[in-house]
């Protein structure tokens, strides 16, 4: 099923024409309306007329999270405040919050892209969509909400948390599609099991999960535990919110809606664009946004682009599942480690529950990595040697994948904090 077949299957040549035309409009808009963008272009002796082909995109300067913070709150808005109908903001835990604004037209486009996404998950006017993403300044809740309304589904705007009530309403309201973070979906699945609710009492068919990196193994786990189809959606508030890209049934990457965004992959160190197939940092340029356009925004997410044709019929380029966010990446003894790599090892081994916590410390000049994982009924034994064997097996597998040694520590079930939103996977006790 496609929400907008003509656009989702537009021939690539036409996509590129559309992108160039929209890129030129966007560059015009920011050059004339946003002093910060104009100044950066002038430093490079660029005017909007210099953007004559899509290749010229790489001449434009990057935009970083710090640029957004420096412009707090409205410095990068490209529409007058009378046209801004909504703002969202990220938490300002490490500095000023980053604030983004939307015009009426921006909200319409966002709803359209979320409608495309939800349609892939099987959404229709008959669906009951339970939105357990947080509502508020975070884009997750309202982003999915408007898309679900556009599809014409029945929306249950429950927001995150209150797990038992989530499950009760899931039963009572006949929820067919669940939207939340994958870590919260796992917590819901565990709780459903604990409450011993028979699967027949749930109408659940699909889950739309995103807002944090998760692995293919976690997808299998959620599909098995909840007996649903799990769809990965990607987005970030700086670029729009959820709905920048999404899985299709072929599951070989997430289609980026290229009529609204141009993706690039760059080497995060040299900042040079990389060809399709090479992993690097994802960079987005928005094409239709009026309130808060972004030019070459560095996401710090690691992915790979694939522009070969997809069996689903969509012509839009695909990005691989996010391998990690450079923010989440921890460097241990000089080795880059992404928490999602640990998730994939644990699920492949299947010995423990897929809940884990990395605790990093420094003893003298040496970084230490402790991986806490929860014991499960199926691997538990009355013999110490068997449990130590499990610890060693996980340790060995982690070392061969990560290239860094760790100490695995088994902890009691449910002792690792469950998240109702984005999971916390790392405690870094080093004072660097």
């Amino acid at each position, binding site marked *: 099923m496609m929400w907008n077949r003509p656009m989702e299957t537009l021939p690539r040549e036409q996509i590129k024409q559309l992108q160039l035309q929209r890129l030129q409009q966007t560059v015009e808009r920011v050059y004339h309306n946003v002093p910060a963008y104009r100044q950066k272009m002038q430093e490079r002796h660029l005017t909007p007329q210099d953007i004559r082909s899509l290749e010229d995109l790489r001449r434009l300067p990057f935009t970083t999270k710090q640029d957004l913070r420096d412009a707090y709150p409205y410095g990068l808005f490209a529409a007058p405040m009378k046209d801004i109908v909504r703002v969202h903001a990220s938490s300002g835990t490490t500095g000023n919050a980053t604030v983004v604004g939307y015009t009426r037209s921006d909200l319409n486009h966002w709803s359209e892209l979320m409608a495309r996404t939800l349609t892939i998950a099987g959404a229709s006017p008959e669906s009951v969509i339970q939105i357990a993403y947080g509502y508020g300044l975070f884009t997750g809740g309202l982003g999915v909400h408007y898309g679900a309304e556009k599809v014409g589904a029945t929306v249950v705007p429950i927001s995150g948390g209150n797990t038992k009530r989530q499950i009760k309403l899931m039963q009572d309201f006949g929820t067919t599609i669940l939207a939340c973070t994958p870590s919260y979906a796992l917590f819901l699945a565990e709780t459903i099991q604990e409450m011993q609710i028979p699967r027949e009492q749930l109408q659940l068919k699909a889950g739309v999960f995103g807002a944090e990196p998760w692995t293919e193994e976690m997808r299998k786990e959620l599909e098995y535990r909840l007996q649903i189809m799990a769809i990965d959606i990607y987005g970030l508030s700086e670029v729009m919110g959820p709905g920048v890209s999404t899985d299709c049934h072929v599951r070989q990457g997430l289609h980026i809606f290229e009529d609204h965004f141009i993706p690039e992959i760059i080497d995060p160190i040299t900042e040079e664009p990389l060809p399709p197939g090479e992993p690097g940092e994802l960079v987005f340029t928005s094409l239709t946004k009026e309130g808060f356009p972004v030019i070459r925004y560095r996401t710090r997410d690691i992915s790979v682009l694939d522009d070969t044709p997809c069996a689903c019929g969509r012509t839009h380029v695909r990005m691989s599942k996010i391998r990690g966010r450079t923010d989440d990446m921890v460097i241990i003894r000089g080795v880059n480690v992404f928490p999602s790599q640990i998730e994939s090892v644990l699920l492949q081994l299947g010995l423990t529950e897929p809940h884990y916590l990395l605790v990093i410390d420094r003893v003298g000049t040496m970084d230490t990595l402790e991986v806490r994982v929860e*014991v*499960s*009924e199926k691997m*538990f*034994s*009355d*013999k*110490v040697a068997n*449990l*130590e064997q499990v610890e060693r097996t996980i340790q060995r597998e982690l070392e061969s994948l990560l290239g860094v040694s760790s100490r695995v*520590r*088994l*902890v*009691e*079930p*449910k*002792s690792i904090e469950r998240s109702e939103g984005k999971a916390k996977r790392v405690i870094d006790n080093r004072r660097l």
Partner: protein
Amino acid sequence: MKVKQISVFLENKSGRLAMLTKTLAQKNINIRALSIADTTDFGILRLIVDRPDEAYQVLKEAGFTASETNVIGVQIPDCPGGLAQIMEVLAEAHINIEYLYALPEKPVDQALVIFRVERVDDAIIALQEAGITVLSGEEVYGL
């Protein structure tokens, strides 16, 4: 002739054992014998109780990771050489002991020994053929 032992995973942090024993106490379950095997990170608590199946359920519901294992219970005289006699029988039958723990019972001058062995059925036969009394589950739970 087998005795059900409950094993429970315990993280090495304060209050876990208190929580566990309280959980059993609330259900009026009596502990007959216990031992703890520990590493630096965690311990395995092994318990013989009067109502093992119920204890297993109660602990699971309280969120503990537990399992049931078949072990052997033997009553031996509480005097020098009491345990040696049994060890000899099992050694001759080439049966490895994974672990054991004992509980003296002063008024009768006997001791209860709990064995976890590799081949439970063979071990029971070997002990019985040597004239050693192997206790039934009910006998152990009701001690």
